[in-house]
């Protein structure tokens, strides 16, 4: 019963709640902006990846391949460390921006693969039909293939966004005051002196964010599929 009593103690304390909400703010800002950066990068990389081979596209294609391989092949925590202590080791550089760039780049690699999969899932007949009607490659892609692909990638992108939000919890490693850091501070010796209760409450916060987000994604999906027969 003490567990619930302590949860109540935390929830009814203005000081602890304001700490949690400060942390929540950082978590939301970092996830939102890195999601935007990730979507942008991912789309760009996916478009390069599905382009037909040509001498001009050779170098960009190699760069994109290396990017996806390296970013997907190394742990996020290490990428954040390298960003923080090697690449952006600039005096007084805002940590929020370092984190947003690190998470955006990471997310971009996963998003690009989802988008590429979505575009490839559209029947080749659609492209052939567009080309046969005399539309240039770019117009076929933008007006025929991508609108159909978007519908297919929404669930996968939603998945990635959810993973991203939860992954931002590691920014406490580089000393940023996010939701997890707030929970750790509340759990520190001068406050509640145990991690268990504040961590559980922080977990509920994450759950609430993710639930709201997945609700939104479901809504978008429903709108896009309004004309489908299934």
């Amino acid at each position, binding site marked *: 019963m003490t567990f619930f009593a302590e949860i109540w103690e935390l929830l009814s304390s203005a*000081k602890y709640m*304001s*700490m949690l909400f*400060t942390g929540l703010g950082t978590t939301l800002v970092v996830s939102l902006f890195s999601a935007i950066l990730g979507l942008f990068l991912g789309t760009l990389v996916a478009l390069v990846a599905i382009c037909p081979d040509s001498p001009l596209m050779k170098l960009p294609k190699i760069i994109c391949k290396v990017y996806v391989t390296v970013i997907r092949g190394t742990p996020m925590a290490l990428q954040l460390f390298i960003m*923080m*202590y090697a690449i952006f*080791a*600039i*005096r*007084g550089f805002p940590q929020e921006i370092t984190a947003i760039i690190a998470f955006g780049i990471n997310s971009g690699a996963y998003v690009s693969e989802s988008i590429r999969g979505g575009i490839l899932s559209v029947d080749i007949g659609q492209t052939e039909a567009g080309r046969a009607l005399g539309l240039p490659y770019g117009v076929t892609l933008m007006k025929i293939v991508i609108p159909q692909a978007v519908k297919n990638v929404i669930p996968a992108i939603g998945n990635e966004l959810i993973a991203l939000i939860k992954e931002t919890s590691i920014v406490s*490693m*580089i*000393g940023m*005051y996010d939701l997890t850091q*707030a929970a*750790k*501070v509340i*759990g*520190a*010796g*001068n406050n509640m*002196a*145990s*991690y*268990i209760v504040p961590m559980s409450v922080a977990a509920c916060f994450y759950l609430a964010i993710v639930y709201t987000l997945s609700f939104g994604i479901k809504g978008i999906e429903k709108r896009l599929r309004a004309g489908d027969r299934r």
Partner: protein
Amino acid sequence: MKKIVSLILALTMVLGVAFALSSCADTEEIIVRTNAYFPPFEYYDGTEIVGVDVDIMELVGKKLGKKITWKDGDFGTIIDNVADGTMADCGAAGITITEARKEKVAFSNPYYTSIQYVIVPDGVSVATKTAGGVEYIVWEALAGKKIATQIDTTGWIYTDGEINATEEDEDYGYNGVLYGTGTSHVEMPDAQAAVDALGVTADVIIIDELPSKYLVENSSKSLKCYPLYYSGSDGEADAPVEEQYAICVTKGNDELLTAINEVLAELGEAKIQEMVMNHMGLNK
């Protein structure tokens, strides 16, 4: 027309260079690295970092007329950050002076002498000894236990050494006290996580004196703590595992180092002890 364009370009360049130079010369703030989970030396009060080290560095800032900016992060990254000097000027985190660290950074005069403590929860039996009115634990008594420490702290370094050191290993050249006794090392990211691990994955914790007292005082678990001693060889008395805290500064930054030493000298042992007691909440 050409003249005006070239004039504007020249002006932009001059301004650009001036701006670049001025931002380079921006040394109006001192950036201090820390790990804010080491009460009473540094800990979060709400979203602010406070503690003994914070009080000391604020005095240093006042002396030099500069702003002090605190940067929190993993304890293990502090020495590298300060050695590099671009992201931080100094590190204040109850850092123990060790030979390996001395090679990378400059240390101020020590301002606090700490000894290692063992936190023992109820239900775990560890043999204690008493000498001169002090009840203590010797390393040998910890054989076979699961010892939790905070990664990269001196407790971690000592425990790692005592468990893993062997005569064959050139880095050590001696057998650790706990070598081959089936003792295991539970490495935790911070002290509070180690307390939560007690009774789950760990039997005891080894950590510095003040944090250990602080943790024992505030925990809802029933814990006790004892100083940790090395057994004296034949006839000699057992001696505590002692160490000294200092503030580390990037090598070559003598202005800051001198200022820190001056502040420490002005404060003196008694005043620092008083700060410690204040932050321990024992003066209330």
